[in-house]
């Protein structure tokens, strides 16, 4: 029962990943694309948590930890570039 609930959650997250990447592909300005990349990073972090649960390996959660630490470096670099400060 709980596994089915988590599978439904994974399907909803995949749909939202598709929607976020659609905004990344059609976004009119660079800022829209950066926001979509940020949302994609967070959604795929949750997806990695689901993969760790479905395969039963606790070591996969470490990948999500690296995602959480590293992901905002890229976004801050994009922001500094847009601000002409990099």
């Amino acid at each position, binding site marked *: 029962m709980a596994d089915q609930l988590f599978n439904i959650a994974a399907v909803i997250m995949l749909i939202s990943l598709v929607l976020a990447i659609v905004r990344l592909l059609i976004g009119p300005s660079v800022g829209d694309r950066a926001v979509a990349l940020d949302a994609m990073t967070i959604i795929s972090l949750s997806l990695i948590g689901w993969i760790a649960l479905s395969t039963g*390996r606790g070591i996969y959660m470490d990948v999500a930890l690296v995602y959480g630490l590293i992901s905002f470096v890229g976004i801050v670099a994009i922001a500094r570039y847009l601000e002409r400060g990099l």
Partner: protein
Amino acid sequence: MIIQIIVSIGALLVLIGLWGLLTRRNLIKMIIGFSIMDTGTHLIIVGLGYRKGATAPILDSSITPGTHFVDPIPSALVLTAIVIGLAVTALMLAYAVRLHSSRGSALIEDFKENTL
């Protein structure tokens, strides 16, 4: 089944990267195409080491006797190749920045033989 899908996705990525490398005029776009090609080859190599129903070859408490592992050699090779790919990309970007600062343009047609 999953290996064929992964290998075909990787091969398509290599082809897309090669197309970008050959047809784009801006140096930065060509380097982006090269980096996409890099990702495609890494995907092919990792995909060839996958076995159905296997798990990662890392020993912890959730491993029981009789568990199947994937081949660890391709992932070790790809681990090195990713780092070297970053170094190659950074070297190409350094050349692009030097060319742009000396010639004032990043388009490939400004670097022909007869304009030297």
